[in-house]
């Protein structure tokens, strides 16, 4: 009794085998496109049943092993006898075509025969630990066909690719199929593809492009080379999408980049007349953008480019400074132009960074470094901090009169100033200069634009912290308060019924905020004294316990001068007014008399007298009529003085306090360094000299660049004042003394 079909006869090997052979032949004919009728279900069932029976029969009629081997045998035989020869007899493209077709046929054949032999897969192959039918079929093809052919195939493929690189047409679909074949023959791993094809392909590619590179670099300029390089990369990427496997892309691109860009980088970028620096010089933004794109993908590729950029910007900046220096020696007006040109330069190169270089941090850094170098140079002895402050001063003064400056230009100029300030290391110098000029603007010019002033302060505060701007903000607030005081004082005078005397306003300043001004114990003319007293009384009513100190050097006075020809109104400073009023009583006074009467210092008096007698308007006659004031001079009221204007301003030349500003700031710096050192030591307790110095520099860098010698001195000083002490064992370390 047979286990299986009860009434089935046993199928013996030869019979079963021949049935199968018949079907296989039929199948081959179909697949090779020869005329043949298609399979019918009956035949299918017959094959399937035959095999089924042969496998389920009891041994020794269980033919599972033989069937498996037969299956393999079918493929082997087919491969050796038919497939391989047909491929071998062709060449080049035809060979590839045949190869590809045979592969497709093989796939179908495997599928069909697997269906017939399916029963084997259900039990036999697993039990016997054999690869399943599908795999077995594929393996046969691989072993018998692929192995022999792949080398030649690869040669042909590479030759075709070479053709395409030389701009000839090739059959891309074919290449795609063949390369797919390579991949599939790897049976779930890419190593066939990689070892049998990709490796050689990449080699070919690199040698092809290195040949190209060397010929291009000889003949072309940098931009031309870059265009070609970009083209090549694009074409290779396309190649991948058309027929290469996507895994190849990164390797391919890297290979081409290495050859075209990395190995020639130095030669390319430094090319005479067309390399990086030349492009920057000639403002070739497109080419620079291309350079960025190409080198962006390469690690460290952008460094030489950013280096060139930095050098270029630095040299441009230095040229600017030099030009300004030259101009300065010719005429004295320097600052407007230079600062404006620096701002323009900055704007220009910032555009480069954002557009050509896609906001890359490397280029921001390069720009910053370049600017820091030349922004900290002096022009004609004036530091950039001071120049910037002067620029702001002039700008604000001008913007009051020049209504054509609309809000946005003012806004943008202010922003540019703040940006530029970022590059200057002595920011505290700027702060001091700006403060002094601000004071002058507020007090002397009267009509200042509060809004603009506040805008720039807000921006500075945002960038550099509240401490930077607190004093200046205080100054602005003082001016607001002063206005209130003016109206308050007027009401007070009105209410008290006392005659006011002359028209009189006082602006009260908070001492800490404003720069310190020299004052002197001037003896005022009587008329003025009573005004001062009444204001003091008024102020007492407003706030008690405050001392008012009068700064005469900043005061302004309008005097009516009754000259012979016509009365002229003179706008003078308080000192000048005091001197002139002295002549109300007498016609003539000597220097000494004036000195005693007014209680002024020599310097001040000389200055004042000079402005009244030796400059443009000779309101006083001097004897002797020399150009300088000496202690033996005597002065007389010049009744003959006249001018075509009815009202003239007699300027008092300001003292050059530039050096004083710098000195003051340097003093402040010492305190800042002290505070910083103590703060650091308090938290660290023990610290070495090197670390202390470097940390101190870092903390202070926001405001200024401290000098190392000065820091050393301050440390010594602090040791002397017993804030720090040296460690006994290690003299390089300091300890905090509580």
């Amino acid at each position, binding site marked *: 009794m047979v286990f*299986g*079909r009860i009434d*089935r006869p046993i199928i013996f090997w030869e019979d079963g085998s021949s049935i199968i052979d018949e079907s296989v032949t039929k199948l081959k004919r*179909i*697949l090779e496109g020869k005329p043949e*009728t*298609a*399979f*019918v*279900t*009956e035949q*299918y*069932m017959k094959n*399937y*049943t035959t095999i*089924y029976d042969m496998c*389920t029969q009891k041994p020794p009629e269980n033919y599972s092993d033989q069937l498996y081997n037969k299956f393999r045998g079918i493929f082997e035989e087919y491969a050796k006898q038919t497939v391989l020869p047909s491929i071998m007899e062709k060449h080049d493209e035809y060979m590839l075509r045949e190869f590809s077709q045979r592969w497709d046929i093989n796939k*179908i054949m495997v*599928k*069909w025969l697997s*269906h017939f032999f*399916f029963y084997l897969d*259900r039990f036999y192959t697993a039990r016997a630990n054999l690869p399943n039918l599908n795999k077995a079929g594929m393996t046969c093809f691989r072993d018998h066909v692929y192995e022999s052919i792949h080398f030649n195939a690869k040669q042909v493929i590479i030759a075709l690719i070479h053709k395409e690189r030389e701009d000839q047409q090739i059959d891309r679909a074919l290449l795609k199929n063949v390369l797919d074949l390579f991949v599939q023959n790897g049976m779930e791993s890419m190593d066939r593809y990689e070892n049998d094809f990709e490796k050689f392909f990449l080699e070919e590619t690199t040698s092809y492009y290195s040949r190209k590179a060397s010929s291009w670099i000889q003949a072309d300029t940098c931009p031309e080379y870059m265009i070609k390089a970009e083209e090549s990369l694009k074409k290779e990427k396309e190649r991948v999408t058309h027929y290469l496997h996507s895994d190849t892309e990164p390797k391919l691109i890297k290979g081409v980049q290495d050859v075209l860009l990395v190995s020639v980088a130095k030669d390319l970028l430094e090319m005479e007349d067309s390399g990086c620096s030349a492009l920057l010089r000639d403002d070739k933004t497109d080419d620079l953008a291309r350079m960025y794109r190409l080198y962006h993908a390469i690690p460290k590729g952008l460094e030489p480019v950013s280096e060139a950029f930095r050098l270029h910007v630095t040299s441009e900046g230095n040229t600017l400074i030099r030009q300004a220096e030259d101009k300065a020696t010719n005429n004295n007006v320097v600052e407007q132009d230079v600062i404006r040109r620096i701002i323009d330069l900055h704007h220009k190169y910032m555009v480069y960074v954002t557009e050509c270089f896609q906001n890359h941090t490397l280029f921001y850094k390069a720009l910053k470094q370049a600017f820091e170098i030349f922004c900290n140079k002096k022009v004609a002895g004036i530091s950039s901090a001071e120049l910037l402050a002067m620029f702001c001063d002039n700008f604000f003064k001008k913007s009051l009169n020049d209504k054509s400056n609309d809000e946005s230009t003012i806004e943008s100029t202010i922003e540019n100033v703040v940006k530029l300030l970022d590059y200057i290391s002595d920011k505290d110098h700027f702060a001091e200069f700006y403060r002094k000029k601000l004071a002058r603007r507020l007090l002397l010019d009267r009509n200042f634009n509060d809004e603009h002033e506040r805008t720039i302060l807000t921006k500075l505060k945002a960038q550099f912290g509240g401490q930077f701007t607190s004093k200046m903000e205080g100054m602005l607030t003082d001016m607001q308060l002063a206005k209130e005081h003016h109206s308050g004082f007027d009401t007070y005078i009105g209410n008290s019924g006392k005659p006011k005397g002359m028209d009189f306003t006082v602006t009260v300043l908070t001492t800490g905020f404003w720069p310190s001004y020299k004052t002197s114990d001037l003896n005022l003319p009587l008329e003025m004294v009573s005004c001062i007293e009444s204001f003091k009384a008024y102020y007492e009513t407003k706030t008690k316990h405050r001392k008012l100190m009068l700064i005469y050097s900043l005061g302004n006075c309008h005097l009516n001068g009754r000259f012979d020809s016509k009365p002229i109104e003179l706008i003078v400073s308080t000192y000048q007014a005091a001197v002139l009023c002295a002549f109300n009583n007498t016609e003539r006074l000597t220097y000494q008399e004036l000195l005693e009467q007014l209680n002024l210092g020599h310097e001040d008096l000389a200055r004042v007298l000079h402005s009244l007698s030796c400059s443009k308007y000779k309101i006083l006659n001097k004897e002797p009529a020399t150009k300088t004031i000496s202690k033996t001079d005597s002065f007389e009221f010049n009744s003959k003085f006249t001018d075509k204007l009815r009202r003239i301003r007699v300027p008092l030349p300001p003292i050059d306090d530039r050096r004083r500003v710098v000195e003051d700031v340097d003093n402040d710096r010492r305190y800042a360094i002290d505070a910083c050192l103590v703060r650091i030591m308090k938290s660290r307790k023990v610290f070495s000299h090197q670390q202390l110095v470097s940390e101190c520099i870092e903390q202070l860098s926001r405001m200024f660049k401290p000098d190392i010698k000065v820091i050393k001195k301050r440390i010594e000083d602090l040791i002397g004042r017993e804030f720090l002490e040296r460690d006994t064992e290690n003299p390089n370390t300091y300890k905090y003394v509580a």
Partner: protein
Amino acid sequence: MRETVKLISMEGFEFIIDREAAMVSQTIRSMLTSPGGFSESKDGVVTFPDISTTILEKICQYFYWSLQYSRGKETEFHIEPELTLELMMAANYLHT
């Protein structure tokens, strides 16, 4: 004729069932979906000279039950004991 197939038993009985039902059998399924010159000339007829009518009938019922079950209707499929052996062999053959 794509909607139904005809299964013929050893005695010649013809069972016409839905294609979908027949596909429950892996064997029939692979036969019906083989590529290359098969589907077109196929007339949807499969002969089983080894399977008796009773068994084939039961098998067809099984196909439909299987479809129902997979759609969520979980009923029982009753098998007469005397059919079991042949039924199982047929199942093995048909890969069901």
